[in-house]
C-alpha cells in the first residue's frame, strides 16, 4: 500500500493517476497513524515550501517523516522540503538532506520557472532510466555528495538526492511519459 501525503487543498490527481495506472494500491492521508500503515510514502510535488511545511507541522507530520524508516519519495517541492531550508519564503525544511534550496536567477536566455523536459543522468539504481524528464521548478538544490542524479540548467543541479530510506526527485516522474512511469514503477516495487 502506497501512502500519498495530503498537504491540503493542492492537486494530487497526477500522482494518484500514475500510482493507480501502475496498478498499486494507495491512499491519501494527512494522518500519521494512517500513513504508518503504508509500505512506502510519497510527498507529492504541488504547492509552495512555506505552505507545505506549515501543513506538515500543523498535522505533526514533520517529525514523523523525519524519523520514519519507510521508503519515502519526495517529488519537486516534496524533495525541496527535505533539505535544511529553502529561500522560498525563508522556510526551514526537514533537514534530511544537507544543504539549502535556492532560486534560479531568471534571464531571457534562461527563463524561470525551469519548465519542460530536461536530461537526467542517474548514477546508480536507476542508471538505465537516464533520459528526459519533466520539470516545473523555480528553486533547486546544488549537486552534493548525496546527489544521485544530475541535470543542468546553466549550471548543474541535483535532479535526485538520496540518503538512507529517503529519495527526492526534482522532476515529475508522474508527468514524464513512459520513462517517468518506469521510474515510479521501480521505486514503488523495490
Amino acid at each position, binding site marked *: 500500500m502506497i501512502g500519498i501525503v495530503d498537504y491540503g*487543498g*493542492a*492537486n494530487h*490527481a*497526477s500522482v494518484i*493517476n*500514475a500510482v493507480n*495506472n501502475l496498478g498499486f494500491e494507495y491512499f491519501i492521508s494527512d494522518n500519521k497513524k494512517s500513513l504508518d500503515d503504508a509500505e512506502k510514502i510519497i510527498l507529492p510535488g*504541488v*504547492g*509552495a515550501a512555506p505552505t507545505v511545511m506549515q501543513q506538515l507541522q500543523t498535522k505533526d507530520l514533520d517529525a514523523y517523516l523525519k524519523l520514519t524508516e519507510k521508503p519515502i519519495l519526495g517529488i519537486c517541492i516534496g524533495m525541496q522540503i527535505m533539505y535544511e531550508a529553502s529561500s522560498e519564503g525563508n522556510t526551514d525544511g526537514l533537514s534530511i538532506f544537507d544543504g539549502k534550496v535556492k532560486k534560479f536567477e*531568471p*534571464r*531571457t*536566455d534562461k*527563463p*524561470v*520557472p*525551469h*519548465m*519542460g*523536459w*530536461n*536530461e537526467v543522468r542517474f548514477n546508480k539504481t536507476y542508471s538505465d532510466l537516464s533520459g*528526459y524528464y*519533466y*520539470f*516545473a*521548478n*523555480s528553486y533547486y538544490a546544488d549537486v552534493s555528495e548525496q546527489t544521485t542524479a544530475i541535470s*543542468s*540548467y546553466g549550471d548543474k543541479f541535483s535532479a535526485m538526492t538520496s540518503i538512507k530510506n529517503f529519495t527526492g526527485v526534482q522532476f*515529475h516522474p*508522474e*508527468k*514524464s*511519459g*513512459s520513462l*517517468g*512511469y518506469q521510474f515510479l514503477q521501480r521505486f514503488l516495487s523495490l
Partner: protein
Amino acid sequence: MLSKRIIPCLDVKDGKVVKGVQFDNHEDVGEITDLAYKYSKDNADELVFYDISASTKNEVVETAWVKKVADKINIPFCVAGGIKNIRVAEAILNLGADKISINTPATENPKLITELANEFGSQCVVVGIDSYFQDQQYNVYSRTGNPTTRTKSNKLTYSWIKEVQDRGAGEIVLNCMNQDGVRNGYDIKQLLDARKIARVPLIASGGAGNMDHFYDVFKSCNVDGALAASVFHKNEVEIEALKNNLLNRGIRVRT
C-alpha cells in the same frame, strides 16, 4: 539543458476538437480523449486543452473532459477557457490539469494573475496573449474564440508581456493572430522581440504549416516551445517525424 517543447493544442468547442482559420469557421477534427491519448503516445511534450467557447459565452471550461483527458495521459496538461477565479482554477487542477492558462480573464482582471500565482505557484499559471498587428503596432485582443465577441483591449502586446511576468505568470503563450490558421509560419519578428523581454518560458503560437516553420521559430527566436493545432490534427505534420527532423538539424528535442 531543457529541450524545446512541441505542444499540440486541442481547441474545444461544444465537446469536440475544432480548428478554424484566423479563429473563424471552426470545423470538427475529432474526439478530445482520442486525440489527447494519441498525442501523448506520439511523444508530444505537453497538451493544451483550450475551450474556445468558454470566454465568449461567459462559461467556464466543462470540467468532465479535464478528468477524462488527465486519466489517459502522463504528460503535462494545460487547461484554458474562461477561468475567472481561484475556485474554478482549483477545481480544474484537482481534476488533474497541471497548469491553467488565462487570456481574456487576465486582460479584464490583471490581479487574477497574481492571485493564481500566490495560490498555486507561478509554474501553474500560463497567460495566453492574443496579439494582432494593426495600425503599426501589436495589440492585445480578448474574447477571440468567436468573431462576434472579439474585442481589442487597451493593452499593447510588449508592455502586456512585461506586466504579466511581473504579476507572476510562469509562462506566456504568444498567439500571433495575423498568422493563425494560415500556415505561413510563425511570426518570427514579433516572437524575437517578445523573447528579448520574456524572462519566463515563451511559447510560440499561430502559423505552423510545415516542419520548417518549427525549425525556424526555434532557431531564430529561441522560444521554449511551439504550439500548433491543425497541422497535427490533420496529420500533415507527424510529431515523431517532426522531432527527428528537428534533432537532425541541431535542435534539442526529446525523442
